[in-house]
């Protein structure tokens, strides 16, 4: 499967590593920030060192940047930046302009998440998913809480042994 991930924060980096290790072709887009505070940090610091995919520095709502990331042959696009609006824009571009079959956008505002889901854009809200999971854990709801936690903890255990990628020096 060819996957484009827009936004390489903790979630994006984690998922990119996971899919890459399963043998999928992954490219990751993260914005080149102009603020000095951000430029000091490495852009793709959350990727595991074993990551074999592509990293593209650029705006994930820019058609050219998305083309560079291989969106024209992508089977899926995941929009996982910190901005709900940017994620919704990237997801719509992928679905409506490039015809990507599977598109998922992280939208933390539940109202926006629901509105766009009704419009046919697959969204998920960290707010409601994490909230629901925590509630399930508190109530020891085995059906919801345990299965997910077991999987997540297994991934975490693998990550502990993973050496951290050497930070890319900001240009």
């Amino acid at each position, binding site marked *: 499967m060819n996957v484009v991930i827009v936004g390489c924060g903790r979630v994006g980096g984690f998922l990119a590593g996971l899919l890459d290790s399963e043998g999928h072709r992954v490219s990751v887009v993260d914005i080149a920030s102009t603020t000095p505070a951000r430029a000091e940090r490495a852009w793709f610091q959350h990727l595991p060192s074993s990551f074999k995919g592509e990293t593209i520095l650029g705006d994930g*709502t*820019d*058609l050219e940047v998305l*083309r560079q990331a291989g969106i*024209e042959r992508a089977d899926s696009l995941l929009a996982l930046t910190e*901005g*709900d*609006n*940017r994620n*919704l*824009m990237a997801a*719509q*571009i992928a679905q*409506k*302009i*490039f015809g990507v079959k599977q598109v998922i956008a992280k939208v933390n*505002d539940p*109202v*926006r998440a629901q*509105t766009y889901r*009704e*419009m046919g854009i697959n969204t998920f809200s960290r707010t409601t998913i994490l909230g629901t999971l925590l509630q399930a854990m508190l109530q020891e709801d085995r059906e919801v809480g345990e299965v997910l936690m077991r999987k997540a903890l297994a991934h975490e255990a693998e990550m502990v042994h993973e050496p951290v990628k050497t930070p890319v020096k900001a240009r």
Partner: protein
Amino acid sequence: MYFVVAGAGEIGFHLSQALLEAGHEVTVIEADRRRANFVQEKLGSIVMNAPADEGRAQMEAGCSRADALIAVTGDDAKNLVICQLAKIRCGTPRVIARVNNPKNEIVFKTLGIDETISSTRVLMNVIEQELPSGGFMPLMSLAGSANELIEAEIAIGTPPAGKTVGSLRLPSGALVGGIIRKGKLLHADDDTKLEVGDRVMVFSPTASESEVRKALFG
């Protein structure tokens, strides 16, 4: 008429002021408290201090009874979502988005926002009219191929003015897809005569762009 303006930056502030002076009813939504206070001092209590990209703020601002919403923040993605939310959740009949990156005009149109304003584009148009080779605009590259769509305006004294489409010396692989004449889209075949002011839509291999320019401007 009743207008909701999303974003009280320089454009939003002056736009709201102009609309008020023209006798319209205005609510301006601004997320930054200090900026909201400033605008309130200048324009009176027409300001709502809230994020305009949230459905609740739009409801409270009365987007469902507004004649139009104009999103003029400095963030294109935000303007897109503000307009889409107003259209879908509030049924605002007319939404207009400011586009900061002119490349996003076509993106917004594809995503259902019919009216966009790009200050960059407006300035470019003014400048281009002053230039002899003006009116030649590669609009977009076509997904999945090495082709692009070019819009070119037929100028006085250029080779195609008064000639037929068939007589254009376009490079191989390039074709005229249509003509916009006085705001109307016309079908173009080889016998269609080109007039000064026509906007010709040319599909062309991206590599042949300079040859298309030569065919149209000499």
